[in-house]
């Protein structure tokens, strides 16, 4: 094992060790110390991450580093062949970046938590749960980092479930509150629904690709596609449908993506995330904003090479729907954490959408920038909630900027980042300005320029990739790189490719297999890009600006250093992540991580040699993704933020008046009801599809609220009750009892001749004898 592998493993194990320490002796360690123990663990991880990151960035032969050694966990038997499930460290640019991001954000949040949980963890019965919180956090940290370094889809799944468990435990941390435990359960079960698909994908990978290793699986997939063997030649019967060839491959891709849908809370499994805000705020920041929910995007990035165009399109559609509906719901939320939750959902939608349109580096870039600023905002909201004594309703806040200056301004940075504040053309901007807009740029390419680019070559373009092209790493990766604005590119640094993409039949061939995306899938994200700044600014303004609306809340508000210091770190992280380091590395990682035979990764920008330097600015003036979109989205933030300020500058009155406008009122109601997803899940499963319409009207009734908890908790229970109580007692037992009773009945019957009267005995005896004799005669004569 190389040093970096060891470092990564150490970074994973350190929190686990702290988990064990806290689990066994946590209650003896006491209140603040146990928090610091956990911080120590995550600091070790951060150290490891930094070590690996610096080493990685300075390494020249990255391919050598990527070859890591594995350890056979178990050895499966597949069609008579041994197939080990290997635990191996995945060491590539993506892992390194994600690892670093996660440890950095975690460190901040851990530290913040010590301050935050001091006031939130004392429980009834004199039981202090402070250490338990850090115990769970450490376990989460372990699982999340484990997930990042897994090179096998199987272990991805293992850690995937573990982070789910931690999420469950942490959402339900205040489990004495009904809503918290409900939310925890809802989260876990919804995730399980997604994992069901994941498992299906896993099984397909197992049987057809015959390996769980990501790289090997990708290679096999590619090979099978080229020879039209394996999964492409299979024809299987699933639940009565015959699925074969490309469709099966698509099914595999969608199956794996189902996992991501659960974890990253994509439509239609998004319902758990807003409820997950029942957990302590640092948890929301860490798990439900920065890291775990992003794991879904990470998963898609990892299995990108196994996707087919149809699967990818499916991903894009799901992402597009999610980002739209959740952003709309975010507009009307009044709970500060709920706003952030829906905005998280929306941003995750952007990322998934990005993956779906092939914007691999852009989506991951957005993931990282989003992690920083969203974690920061969540912590900010935690600060507010803590300061306001557990008030989360923004209508009771207002004017907190004086009481909480650091929180206020760091939060504003977050708002700016998510809104994509920047100056088009000047290459000055924050977070989303680069990352989100790059996704949009790629979407634009896919929606408008795709056929122009490749269509012409689709017909004659060979489907096979020849060896001759293997010399060109960037192209072997199947990565399409272009600069925005319809100007194609170019001037790409790779000398071996001076000819550009047009002339490359291989690339064209691959690309031509992909659909042009419908135009609405470009325009919806654009519209939401206008909505986003609005609701974020609304949130900030309602909280920090204006006049205090609730004296008592305002009176108590305060900040504490343990809690605002991490905010500053994260604010710095937001700034750094927007410019430095991450984007070029991701672009480079894409070269390896996207070698897909069927789909292409579309790069919104061109990596520059100089960017390989740690401090090199990523955003090359000439390669600004906004070049083409400048008119469409470049100033979206101005419009959104402006409108928000316009409406909320004088308190809530104007907003209230608007809300009462006839049409708005209807929309508002719909959005307040979260577009009825919870209700729909409830009712669909309660009454069956034919009752859906009838039930939707009833859904207004407030008592049906609890979504997925009831999905299994009420509707299925009825089926279960039927099966458990009626079938078992009535059916099987009934049958057995009936047999028993009839046996007894027969017993009673055969006793009837025993009348006690000897004359009867003689008669029955004789009659019986005659019968037996008759039977004998019948047999003998026959």
């Amino acid at each position, binding site marked *: 094992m190389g040093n970096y592998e060891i470092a990564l493993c150490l970074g994973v194990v350190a929190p686990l060790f702290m988990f064990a320490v806290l689990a066994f002796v946590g209650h003896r360690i006491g209140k603040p110390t146990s928090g610091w123990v956990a911080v120590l663990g995550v600091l070790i991880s951060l150290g490891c991450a930094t070590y690996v990151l610096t080493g990685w960035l300075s390494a020249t032969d990255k391919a050598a580093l990527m070859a890591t050694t594995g350890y056979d966990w178990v050895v499966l038997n597949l069609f008579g062949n041994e197939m080990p499930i290997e635990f191996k460290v995945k060491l590539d640019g993506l892992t390194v970046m994600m690892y670093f991001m996660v440890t950095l954000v975690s460190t901040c949040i851990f530290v913040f938590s010590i301050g935050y949980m001091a006031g939130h963890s004392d429980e*009834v*019965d004199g039981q202090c749960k402070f250490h338990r919180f850090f115990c769970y956090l450490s376990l989460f940290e372990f699982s999340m980092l484990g997930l990042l370094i897994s090179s096998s889809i199987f272990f991805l799944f293992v850690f995937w479930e573990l982070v789910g468990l931690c999420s469950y435990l942490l959402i339900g941390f205040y489990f004495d509150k009904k809503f918290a435990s409900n939310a925890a359960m809802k989260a*876990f079960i919804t995730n399980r629904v997604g994992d069901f698909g994941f498992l299906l994908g896993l099984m397909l990978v197992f049987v057809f690709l015959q390996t769980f290793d990501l790289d090997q699986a990708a290679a096999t997939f590619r090979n099978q596609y080229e020879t039209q063997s394996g999964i492409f030649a299979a024809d299987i*019967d*699933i639940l009565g449908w015959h699925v074969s060839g490309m469709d099966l491959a698509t099914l595999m891709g969608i199956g794996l993506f189902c996992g991501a849908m659960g974890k990253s809370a994509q439509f239609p499994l998004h319902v758990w995330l807003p409820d997950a805000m029942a957990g302590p705020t640092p948890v929301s920041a860490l798990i439900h904003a920065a890291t775990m929910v992003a794991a879904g995007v990470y998963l898609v990035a990892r299995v990108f090479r196994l996707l087919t165009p149809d699967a990818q399109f499916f991903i894009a559609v799901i992402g597009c729907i999610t980002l739209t509906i959740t952003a709309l719901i975010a507009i009307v939320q009044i709970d500060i954490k709920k706003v952030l939750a829906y905005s998280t959902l929306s941003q995750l939608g952007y990322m998934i959408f990005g993956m779906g349109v092939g914007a691999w580096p852009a989506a991951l870039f957005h993931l990282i920038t989003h992690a920083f600023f969203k974690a920061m905002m969540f912590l900010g909201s935690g600060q507010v909630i803590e300061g306001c004594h557990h008030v989360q309703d923004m209508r009771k806040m207002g004017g907190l900027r004086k009481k909480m200056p650091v929180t206020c301004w760091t939060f504003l940075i977050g708002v700016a980042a998510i809104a994509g504040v920047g100056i088009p053309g000047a290459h000055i901007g924050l977070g989303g300005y680069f990352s989100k807009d790059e996704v949009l740029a790629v979407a634009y390419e896919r929606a408008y320029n795709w056929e122009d680019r490749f269509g012409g070559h689709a017909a004659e373009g060979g489907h096979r990739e020849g060896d001759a092209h293997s010399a060109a790493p960037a192209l072997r990766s199947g990565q399409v790189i272009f600069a925005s604005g319809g100007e194609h590119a170019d001037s790409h640094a790779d000398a071996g490719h001076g000819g550009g993409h047009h002339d490359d039949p291989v690339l064209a061939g691959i690309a031509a297999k992909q659909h042009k995306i419908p135009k609405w899938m470009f325009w919806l994200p654009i519209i939401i890009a206008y909505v986003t700044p609005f609701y974020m600014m609304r949130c900030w303004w309602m909280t920090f600006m204006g006049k205090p609306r609730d004296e008592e809340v305002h009176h108590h508000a305060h900040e504490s250093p343990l809690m605002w210091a991490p905010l500053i770190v994260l604010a710095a992280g937001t700034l750094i992540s927007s410019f430095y380091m991450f984007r070029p590395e991701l672009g480079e990682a894409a070269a390896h991580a996207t070698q897909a035979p069927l789909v292409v990764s579309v790069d919104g920008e061109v990596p520059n040699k100089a960017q390989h330097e740690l401090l090199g600015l990523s955003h090359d003036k000439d390669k600004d993704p906004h070049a083409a979109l400048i008119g469409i989205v470049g100033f979206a933030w101005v419009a959104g933020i402006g409108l928000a300020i316009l409406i909320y500058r004088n308190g809530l009155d104007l907003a209230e008046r608007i809300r009462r406008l006839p049409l708005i009122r209807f929309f508002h109601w719909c959005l307040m009801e979260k577009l009825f997803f919870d209700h729909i899940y409830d009712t669909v499963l309660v009454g069956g599809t034919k009752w859906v319409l009838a039930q939707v009207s009833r859904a207004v009734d407030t008592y049906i609220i609890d979504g997925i908890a009831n999905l299994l*908790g009420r509707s299925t229970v009825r089926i279960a009750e039927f099966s458990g109580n009626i079938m078992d007692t009535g059916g099987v037992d009934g049958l057995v009892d009936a047999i028993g009773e009839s046996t007894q009945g027969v017993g009673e019957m055969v006793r009837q001749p025993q009348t006690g009267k000897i004359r009867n005995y003689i008669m029955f005896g004789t009659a019986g004898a005659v019968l037996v004799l008759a039977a004998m005669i019948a047999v003998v004569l026959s």
Partner: protein
Amino acid sequence: MDQHLISWIVFLPMIAGIVLLFVPRELVKWVALFGSGLAFVLSLLLFKTFWGGDAAAIFGDTYGTLHHVERASWITGNKFNIEYFVGLDGLSFPLFILTTFVSLLACLASFNFDSWKINKGIKAYFFLFLLLETGMLGVFVSLDFFLFYVFWEVMLLPMYFLIGVWGGERREYAAIKFFIFTLAGSVLMLVGLVAMFFYSADAVAEYPEIATSYHTGAPLTTGTFDLIELATNDAIQKYFGAASTTLLNVRFAPLMFMFLFIGFAIKLPCVPVHTWLPDAHVQAPTPISMILAGVLLKMGGYGFLRLCYGIFPVGGEFWAGFLAVIAVISILYGALCAMAQDDFKKLVAYSSVSHMGYVLLGVCVMTTTGFQGAMFQMIAHGISSPMCFFLVGVIYDRAHHRQINKFGGLWLSMPRYGSMATLGFFASLGLPGLCGFVGEAYVLLGTFQAGPKFDWAYTAAICAAFGVVLTAGYILWVIQRVYLGSVREEYKGFPEANGREMLILAPLGALCILLGVLPKQTVFDFMNGTLNLLVDQMNAVTQVAMAATGG
């Protein structure tokens, strides 16, 4: 001692049981603990044999390599040679250890006997308990079918009394139900026992040239009860598998398979013969529930592997589709039933039905991975379900009821216990990293892998995978209702799990994690050798039979 090690382990509990009849009342439980504890310690010595990497050396080149074999003639009629024939291989060894282990913990769990609602007859209780242990151990080590059957039935009576005398409200009903169901399964097995002997005699007479015995090396000339011989003798396998071999005008292998299967399916149990289980579990005292779930159910699975599939692979292939349907129904139906329960113990009991459905699914697809998964699932369930039952027992001792909906917030009043409960139930849920996951994953993968052979395998795997969601549903729901939520007034003063309780929970919890993290080192290494050979053997036989039918 060493050469009779297994016999010592098997009969030691019984000896202790007899001894305790003659000691003062206060010492009884200590004698019992000593008996089951010593059996456990001695069984650990067996690891010496199975330790090490060289699978071929440990498990042999063909199915039938045994260790610690003891053979002695037992009943010799004019034809029979019924032997006292015991031994261990990869199939029985893990289950053997599991049995001594769970029994020890169950014995420990019985230590609060005096505080039970029915606490008369402590000697009788521990005597029957130890007798039961002997019976269970005997089943796993017996390699003579007759001996197997005797041990199999020896367990019935102690279990009947343990449930019937020391059980809950409806103990009589539950006990007799258990008895009748189990006996119903085993009577047909008895016919199978007779038939297999005489048909094997016919077989060696029919094909004397290939009737070479694995044991003596010479051709076999008589019928046999030797389970290994029945499985490995070419003549017997050829004759059993042949389409022309019939009993009551039905093809022999499928019929015999069914005769045996019914008995094991009842024990496993799978739908629709599972209904004894919830009753038995709910009514039985906690330690007995632990034994029931931890060991008794495994006998069904063990029987599948050793007898049904070992001896009648052709029958297995014949019924595969049917069994898969039953298995999937068990998985889903068990989970749904679990969800519908108000009684905590009944919920765990139904979860066993669901989990054991995976075992059936794993074996019925007849793939190596499936077999391994089924076996692992048995071990894992043998760890997690006793734990769950004990967890239920702990609160039953305190609250004297098991109504899920009347609980709440127990984690607050009993944090240590709550943590163990979470661990136990998540292991049962099949969370990766804990023991329940590996078996399920293997079974699903094994089932999916059977796709080329059986059309329905993909569908079965997907349906079974959906069980994972349902499992999460009922487990989380019960955790939420019992352990989470605000603490109720009446349970505020509940004492935390005491030392004895933690002593039982801790090893189980540790094993839940250990098996989940290192499945290869803890379980697979000890059984894969035999399982792989068994599958090879099975495939060879079914191919021959298929070729014969085709020709």
